[in-house]
């Protein structure tokens, strides 16, 4: 708990501290779904995404965050995907987007011991 002794507290740093972060989840996805590497962050998957129309969910964003080891947001939001598979149809780089999400969930479960989604 940060001290509020003088009526204000230290701000949380926003910076992505690459060295401090753990990229095990991303490594797991790379190993099991190598097309994860091919994303160029165009956002077509997020544009067509069923879940993203009504919930905060962008695979494009999660992709970047996972690769930087910023796992807190993906850990929660990855649950919003309903596996409809529309994203695979639009990806210009041939990323198996559905597979990325599947293995991301698996990684969180196996590595962090999260409950089965």
């Amino acid at each position, binding site marked *: 708990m940060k001290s509020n002794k003088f009526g204000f507290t230290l701000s949380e740093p926003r910076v992505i501290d690459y060295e401090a972060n753990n990229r095990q989840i991303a490594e797991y996805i790379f190993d099991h779904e190598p097309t994860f590497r091919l994303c160029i962050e165009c956002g077509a998957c997020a544009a067509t995404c069923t879940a993203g129309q009504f919930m905060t969910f962008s695979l494009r964003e999660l992709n*970047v965050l996972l690769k930087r080891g910023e796992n807190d947001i993906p850990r929660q939001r990855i649950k919003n995907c309903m596996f409809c598979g529309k994203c695979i149809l639009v990806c210009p780089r041939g990323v198996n987007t559905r597979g990325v999400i599947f293995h991301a969930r698996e990684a969180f479960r196996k590595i962090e011991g999260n409950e089965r989604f």
Partner: protein
Amino acid sequence: MENIVVIGGGVSGLEAAGQLARMGYSVTVAEKNEKTGGNVKNWYHLFPDRRDSKEVIDYLNKLASHPDIKILTGKEITEISSRNGKFDIKSSDGTVLEADAVIVATGFELFDSRRKEEYGYGIYDNVITSADLEKMFRSGGVRLVNGKLPEKVGFIHCVGSRDEKVGNYYCSKLCCVTAVKQAIEIKEKIPGAEIFCFYMDMRMGGPYYEELYREAQEKYGITFIRGKVSEISVNINGKLVTKAEDTLAGRPLRMELDMVVLMVGTEMPEGNIKLAERSLLKCSENRFFKPVDNHYGSNLSGKKGIFYAGCCVAQMNITESISHARAAVSEVVNYLKNR
């Protein structure tokens, strides 16, 4: 025999000279450096197919070793003036060459990275340029100043390009694909290294460039981060602390690298700006020579008998430089036959 002076002995200069000689003209090539071969001779492998640059240099040298081609090295041209349909081409050593037509093929020079002070080139160890890296490749090893292998390498795109702060609005076009090529080459030499490219846009506008980019991701695991590096500094462990925004995450990013490679852009050499002024040739806002028309007159200077070839008008890769040089030759022949 009609004589043509070609200013510049790089790719387009030698190509133009060779083609003219084949057609029966006498050619004098004035090269300001001690060796011909322009910027290419300082490169190790070429994008996108990674052939050795020596192959291109060998082709050019073979083409230009012709009895009707005279190559003068160490000769910097300072002024072109015309007199009764002939041209006087003055050199900094005081000599004057005479010609019936002139091809300006003065090319580009690399941006001086020291002007981007925030990257610390020349101040911090292990901040190098793309040209320095090519030298390392040629001499056999990518090493840190302390002799060790780098484990984490960052490439910074657009150093001196697309940057109002250094007065260059333009894209240098050749550097994105060079970064991808160099990233792959480092990864091949040091398989355990983590490689990052910090880019503003990936401009893969050439044949097989996008494919190379894809290969860099798929086969070599190069990480591409969209964000221009704002600052490099050194921490107490000698690591290069690199700051950028990870624009696609919408957050600032901080990373510690062993080596940073600055992807230097291209510039019109200062001497050529003076050459243009003295010779009453026009330059564009980007300071390169301004041709009469960018679509169908890019070899024409606007002064009859003076023609442009290659990177002195715009950024071109080797293929384009050679094509542009050949086009210049056709303009020269047309001019000499119909004057």
